[in-house]
């Protein structure tokens, strides 16, 4: 259970991002997707472009489709968007902007949503990342010469929720085409919806290829969590505040961290900071200034 109430500012940003990414509100009423020029914009988080409200394009879907098409080309545009976002803030996108991350947090039951995830399940998201990066060009239909966005086809619960339920079910023509694959996808979505009640962000932690990708950037992103060992009292308040129960004081930029920054807020001595500046112990030593201090220390010891 969280000892500290969740940051209302973060929740506000999450809702604002979800609304901005899905601002085609008439689409929800009509069951139609937006088809205007803003669809060229690739958003840095998971948001199905077939959601009736979506204004932009999902990077996971766009990347796979480009790879699966006849040219089998890697989309530098999409790769550039996510690489830039990762290099700047790592999984900050997951914690502050992703609408599906918001959904998982809203549906969670605060008192019981901290059940641990078995470690092997955490590795599945890296398999998903590999599947997104390579399967569309490795598994090609021999007759058409085309691949497919396999993650979207078989796994993505955001697509099932946003495109399948909000668009597909409302369209008689699409409804007529639904078969076992749709039932499978609904079952995957249902499993994650149930898990969201008991586990903090189960999809992000076990199956999200974008989360896996951004997690690799956590230790090297420009803005990251800096731990000032000189200020830390080892009280472990940060560990208690972390919804993922990470040892923040030992590994402040763990790949699993979604950068909710609850640890930074909870730290009583301000030993944690989310900043682009290095922590004091990581800053280069100024030898000219440090010499006299060393001399004073020697004199005191004598």
């Amino acid at each position: 259970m969280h000892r500290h109430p969740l940051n209302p500012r973060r929740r506000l940003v999450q809702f604002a991002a979800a609304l901005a990414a899905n601002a085609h509100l008439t689409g929800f009423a009509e069951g139609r997707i937006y088809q205007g020029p803003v669809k060229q914009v690739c958003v840095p988080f998971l948001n199905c472009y077939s959601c009736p409200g979506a204004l932009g394009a999902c990077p996971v879907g766009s990347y796979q489709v480009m790879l699966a098409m006849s040219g089998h080309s890697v989309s530098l545009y999409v790769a550039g968007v996510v690489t830039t976002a990762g290099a700047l803030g790592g999984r900050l996108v997951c914690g502050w902007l992703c609408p599906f991350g918001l959904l998982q947090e809203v549906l969670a039951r605060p008192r019981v949503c901290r059940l641990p995830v078995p470690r092997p399940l955490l590795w599945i998201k890296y398999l998903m990342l590999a599947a997104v990066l390579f399967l569309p060009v490795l598994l090609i239909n021999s007759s058409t010469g085309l691949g497919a966005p396999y993650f979207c086809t078989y796994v993505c619960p955001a697509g099932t929720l946003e495109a399948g339920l909000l668009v597909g079910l409302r369209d008689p023509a699409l409804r007529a085409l639904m078969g076992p694959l749709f039932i499978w996808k609904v079952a995957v979505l249902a499993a994650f919806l149930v898990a969201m009640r008991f586990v903090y962000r189960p999809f992000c932690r076990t199956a999200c290829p974008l989360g896996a990708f951004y997690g690799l950037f956590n230790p090297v992103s420009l803005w990251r969590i800096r731990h000032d060992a000189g200020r830390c009292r080892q009280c472990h308040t940060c560990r208690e505040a972390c919804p993922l129960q990470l040892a923040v004081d030992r590994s402040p930029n763990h790949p699993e961290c979604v950068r909710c920054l609850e640890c930074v807020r909870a730290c009583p001595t301000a030993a944690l900071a989310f900043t682009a500046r290095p922590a004091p112990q990581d800053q280069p030593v100024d030898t000219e200034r440090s010499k006299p201090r060393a001399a004073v220390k020697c004199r005191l010891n004598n």
Partner: protein
Amino acid sequence: MKDQRWISYGLAAAGICMLLAGLARGEAADVMQKAVMICLECIGIR
């Protein structure tokens, strides 16, 4: 661990270069061409 901000700057620069190269290749239009269609795979239709 020593701070290695040059890695962050390098990755950000690489990302921006890829983004610009993609835009120059006209990939935004390709992305849009697919994104304005209903994604049958996302719904669960093959």
